[in-house]
């Protein structure tokens, strides 16, 4: 996927993340069961979003590196 697409995905992901961990979404995700790796579900919920953030940002950066390589614009270092 192209860099600009990943940039949009990254924005959308973090906006969704912010909405998902506050009222009203988080109040719907408000049960300790099922446990995930021993953690109550409401605690695993933000943790999963954090791990997702790592993956999305990592993919964005990879797409960015390819994009810069392709356009040979450089100027980053």
């Amino acid at each position, binding site marked *: 996927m192209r860099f600009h697409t990943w940039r949009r995905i*990254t924005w959308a992901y*973090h906006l969704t*993340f*912010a909405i998902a*961990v*506050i*009222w*009203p979404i*988080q*109040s719907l995700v*408000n049960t*300790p069961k099922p*446990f995930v*790796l*021993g*953690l*109550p579900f*409401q*605690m695993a919920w*933000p*943790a999963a*979003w*954090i*791990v997702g*953030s*790592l993956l999305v*940002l*990592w993919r*964005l*950066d990879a797409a*960015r590196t390819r994009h810069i390589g392709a356009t040979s614009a450089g100027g*980053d*270092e």
Partner: protein
Amino acid sequence: MDKSSLITVIIFAYLAVTLGVGLMAGRRASRSVQGYVAGDRDFGLLVMYFITGATVFSAFAFLGGPGWAYSRGAAAFYILTYGVLGMAPWYAMGPKVAALGRRFGFVTQAQLLVGRFPSRGLSAMLAVLTLAAFVPYVTIQMRGAGIVIEAVTDGRIPLAAGAAVAYAIVLVYVLSSGVSAVGWTNTFQGVVMLVIAWALGIYLPYHLYGGVGPMFEQIMAERPELLSLPGLTGSGEPWSWGGYSTAILASAIGVTMWPHLFMKAYTARNDKIIRRTVILFPTFQLFLIPVFLIGFAGVLFPESPDQADFILPFLVLRSELPALVVGLFCAGALSASMSTGDALLHGAASVVVEDGVQPFWKLSDKGQRLLMRILVVLVGALAYLFALVEGFSLVDLLLASYGIICQYMPAMLAALYWRRATTAGVVSGLLVGSAVSVFFFLMPELKPLGMHEGILGLIAHIPVLLVVSLRGTPQDGEHVEGYLHV
């Protein structure tokens, strides 16, 4: 040697290593303001990763985090969520801030704002607000260090002496090596924090309950209210969803805007390192999970400490761990305190000199560095005096300063991305936002839906910024281009 002496020896060994790392770090930095404040813009990924992580996670996370989980249950989860939300915007903003720093020679956050919106009054206002926000923050770190040392040495080293020893060491390395010392000691301290938190966070639930899942099963059976969001308030009443949700948003904005973190964008060697630091930050953030597990492990423990914040040292001392582990735990907690405290002291001194003094009285490069060192000592001394006063509600002051730091966000976004913003708009927005935030801090019973005062301040701030800017004369096009396109 008895257990308590052995622990004391480990603590002093740890402090000696920290001091050594701090003093070694400064040998390469240049003797200039750029070297002292921005590390000659030459920090690599390893140091940037730990300086960010260890600075964000302070004694509040290491002692307060378990304290929250222990006494307020699920309310603590808000601390887990905001860090990554606050850091992610730096992927886009960080390289831009760094480029502006290189172009105009900025080393502080206010210099960037005042560069785009020229006003000595704005500069002085930011210096005063930043200093007012930092002093209670440093004080909390000092008390944290003192509390841990007092607890694990059985009171043989009282709070005042413990805090004095830990922060004397911080002073020595910050005075001699500036931000290079902050960077390298934070790397060492960050490693200690991560290892200790994960090791104890997994060990204690297994040791006391036979596992993480079984621990939560028992808590669910005996204290179900702790596992239901938004958890409890400090006095044990249910917390409001408005309070929980806006605490996340205000804290995330705070993480994006805290001046001592913001300034670190100027220290990175290149943009790639800033981006990689942001990408890797979530791995640091997850260390709050074991930290909370430690707090939850205390919930069903038969005894309880006087104050919730003491739950971590309390459990560690009562679970028959070997002295070595207790000593290392203590090192972890001291790391959390000192790695935030050093960045704050260094940041406060840099901001006061560069933004509060330099626009009014021009000092030589050497004069600036001398004044910064004097201020590091003065701010440290002031915070220490506060730390000695019992019962002073510092956490309340820190929360109030979060409300003010939030107000930096619209100004910064306007400086970096909005062509039509004007100096008058930014200054009036900041004044209104800060006033509203302070008002609701003083009158908490008037807060709509229990919302955080920082968010209430922003609700007033943003329209003022927009309206005053749009009604004023636009800034010179060439000047604006210098900030928007880098």
